[in-house]
Structures are given as C-alpha cells and as structure tokens.
C-alpha cells in the first residue's frame, strides 16, 4: 500500500509541474483538487488495515495534544508545537500513523481556526512530515539528536514552502525565477518562527516522549 501513497505524491508534484510549465489558466483549480485527491490513498490504506480501537489511540491522543498545543500557542504567529509532535508520532509509531497524526490534526485544528484553501495542503504537508519521519527512523537515520533537530528544521521550512506554493503557482503568472524566489523569501520570517518553535518543543521532550511511547507500545502490544 505504501507504493500507492508515493504514487499519489509523485502524481501531485507532476500535476503541479505540468500546470506551471504549460501556464494553464486553471492551475489553482487543478492543483487544489489534486491535493485533495492525493490525501485519499493514504486514508484508504489506513482504512484497509482495519485497525482495532486500541491501535487508533496513539494517533488520536497525539493529534489531540498537537491541536491543544496549537490552540494554546495561537497568539504567537506561526509558533506551534504541531510539527514537533507529528515528528515524534512518526518516529514512534511508523510512517502510516505519522501521516494520520499530521493529517488529522491539521483537519481538526482548522475546525477551530477556520477551514480554507490551505486545509488540504496543511493536511498533506504535516502528514508527509510524519510519514517521512517514520520512514527515516525505520532506516535508523533519525537516531542522533542532531539528526532529529536537522529534520525538524528542514520539515518546518518545507512546510512553509508547500504552503506558499499554491498561492504562487495559482495566482502569479507568468512565473519567472525572480518572482518565485522573492515570494518564497517573503515567507521566510514566518518559516523561521515555525522552525524555532519546532526545535524549542523537540528539545526538552523528544527523548522522554520516545522512550515513553515505546514503552506504551510494548506494554499494550500496539501495532
């Protein structure tokens, strides 16, 4: 099933590239619905596993914590613990659970902050952050602290990058390197705030949380 998920992401990226290169007038429309459709394979593969209520719980609890954190820190612009929690979820419970934690906490937090054209992109971006964290930790890359922090910073920056892409591809035409670069540069302060928040939240808790989650996983025999 993991193959289908990768296929969904690759086809989304290729739709975006084709729309940008051919300067299609309906770019905003196509890539918006492509993003919505790209989430579906992940959902179907999760649904196919027919998880028991116990196996749902890690995703539910971590998403609830992430959303609660986003609500508590809502006053500070782009300062949110979501990314840190999603990364830990992916590392502790595997790529699929990581994706679900990211995507569902994105959807639920927007019930509080308002849905918008950004919802599918946020779901995808946070989902992929958890997914990739899961895959990297399966391959034993995310073991040392510095690698986890580097991943946290890269993930937060690429989250902002994904968020800006829809605006730029859909509403700025014709694209040249000047307006692409300057659009992304304008978003940099927000992305840095996001990256700082991720590291600030990862720093004190990642070790204890990973240890604790692994213990719970073993104790209750979660998948």
């Amino acid at each position: 099933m993991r193959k289908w998920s990768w296929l969904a992401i690759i086809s989304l990226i290729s739709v975006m590239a084709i729309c940008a290169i051919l300067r299609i007038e309906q770019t905003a429309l196509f890539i918006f619905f492509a993003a919505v459709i790209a989430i579906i394979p992940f959902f179907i593969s999760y649904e196919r596993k027919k998880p028991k209520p116990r196996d749902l719980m890690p995703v539910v609890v971590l998403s609830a914590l992430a959303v609660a954190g986003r609500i508590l820190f809502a006053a500070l612009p782009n300062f949110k613990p979501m990314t840190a929690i999603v990364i830990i979820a992916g590392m502790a419970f595997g790529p699929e659970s990581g994706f679900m934690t990211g995507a569902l906490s994105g959807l639920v937090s927007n019930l509080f902050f308002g849905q918008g054209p950004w919802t599918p992109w946020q779901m995808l971006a946070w989902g992929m952050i958890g997914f990739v964290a899961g895959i990297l930790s399966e391959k034993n890359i995310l073991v040392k602290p510095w690698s986890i922090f580097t991943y946290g910073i890269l993930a937060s920056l690429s989250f902002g990058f994904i968020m800006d892409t829809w605006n730029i591809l859909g509403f700025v035409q014709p694209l040249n390197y000047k307006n692409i670069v300057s659009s992304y540069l304008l978003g940099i302060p927000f992305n840095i705030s996001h990256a700082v928040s991720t590291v600030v939240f990862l720093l004190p808790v990642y070790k204890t949380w990973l240890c604790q989650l692994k213990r719970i996983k073993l104790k209750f025999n979660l998948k």
Partner: protein
Amino acid sequence: MHSLKDYHPGVSLLYFFCVLTCSMMTRNPIWVLLCLIFAIIFVIQLKGFKHFLLQLFYFLPMLIFIVFMNSYFNSLGLTVLFYLGRGSPVTAENLTYGVISGLALLTILLWFTCFNSLISADQILIIMGKSFPTIGLSLAMIIKFIPDTIKQGREVLLNQKAMLGKQELTGNQKVKFAARMITVLLSWSMENSLETADSMLAKGYPSKNRINYSREHLNSSDLGLLITMLILFIIHLISAFSGSIKFTYYPFLKWSGFATNKNMLIISLVSLSLILAFPLVLDIINRYKWQKILKQEQNMQQQIIDGIIVYE
C-alpha cells in the same frame, strides 16, 4: 440562521464545489467579479457587514502580495503606465491581471468563510464517516479528547506546583518543569485513551449499526436541489468553454469570446448567476413561505377571536 442549513449537508457541499470551481477556473474579469459580488453578498448575509470588513482587512496583505508579484516582476503588456523603482515597467495589462488574480483569491477565501459558518464540525464528521468510518471515528475522538487534555493539563499543573511548595524556579528548571508536566500529561492521556478503547471493544465496536450525532436524510427536496444545481453547473461549463470565456491579457487586453459567441456568452453568464444566487434565492423563497404561514396563522387566530371558527 440561513435556510440552506435546513437541507442535507450534501447540498451545501455541492454548492461550494460548484462556486469554488467557477471562481478558480478562469481569470476573465467578468466571471471573477460576478463570483466576488455574490461571495460578498453571501458573507454579509451569513456573518454581517462588520465581519465582512474584518475579513477584508485580514486578507488585504494577501491581495497586495498577489498584485505586487504579478506586476513588479514581469514586463509583459504594451501600455506602460509607470516605472516602480528599478523593476520592470508596470503596464495596464499586468496590473489588471494582478488585481483580477488577487480578487479571485479573495473570492475563494470569502467562499471558505461561508463554508465555515454553514457547515458545522459534526457535518464534516458525517461526511468523513460515510466514506472512511475509521477516520471519522478518530476525528470524533480527537475532538472529544482536546478539552479533556486541556482540563487534565490544568490538573497536572496544579499538582506539580503543589509539590514544589514555595520554591522558585530558575530558567533551566522551568523548562524541565514544563517538560515533565507535558510528559505526565502524555502518559495519562495515553493510558486513559487505551481504557476507552478497551471498553469500546467490549461494547461491540466494529458494529455496523453506528449512528451519528445528527441524523441527515436525503429527501426528495434535497435531491431536487442537487440535480438542478448539477444541471446548471454542466450547462455553465459547456457554454463557458465553448469559447465565450476566452480572455487574453498579453500583449493587450482582449476578450476574444465576446464578439464570436454571443449566445453562448449569455447562456453561460445566466447559468453562472443562477448557480451563484442559489442560496440567496432559496433563502428568499423560504422566508416568503414562512411569512405566508405566519399570516394564515394570524388570520385564523383573528377568526377564532371573532367567533367565525369555533375551536375547542
């Protein structure tokens, strides 16, 4: 309360699908402005004028960003208006394109404002739960766990503080304190949720007879609305893309579909306005019907008082 809320959520969803598609599929100024006007009317109807102004203020930076990105960095277009700093010339064409693109984005954001006030969380749960039952359930549980987590977090904080007594914490200790608090919270909510999961299993969780918080049935009037909207949408798509919508910005503004396809143009504009005005018309009709019922009721009351009708 808008009368669109009385119908099945599928009706509102299809409406938003249609209007979002219409607002995003073209940069023809007439189309964009028509969508914008109806979006503004709908927002004002749902949330009031004050809220609309607030939204406008909130979305303004986005609009300026789009206009700037479109006109500052490209030199397309023939009618040069002025030079902005050391950038390429600002032409009437790229300025128009920028403004129209910005307004298109504004329209989409306004539609989502309507979406948020019209479709409630439990309706989203129903929609998700129909096609993805496990994910719908997870969503419901997440929504339930958020206030629980916050409440328990307060309790943990109080307990941890009580253990400290009067001791003042330094900077480093504060971080450690917060980390310990969050860790306690995590283990509490994990174990608590696993107990919930076990009791769910004991009560027969994967049962097929699950019900939703609010029950929605697709009745004949919903179906009628859905079919009407779908037909209008298809008519609009066909007539618009048969050529009437075509508008080019560069090298100069030209609406090539205007002269060649008059009939199609009229059909597509009328069908678009009908789609956009859908909730407005629905609301007016339902209000009218309600007024009529009230009037009849008053009439009858009067007749009872006058003794024309003997009512026991």
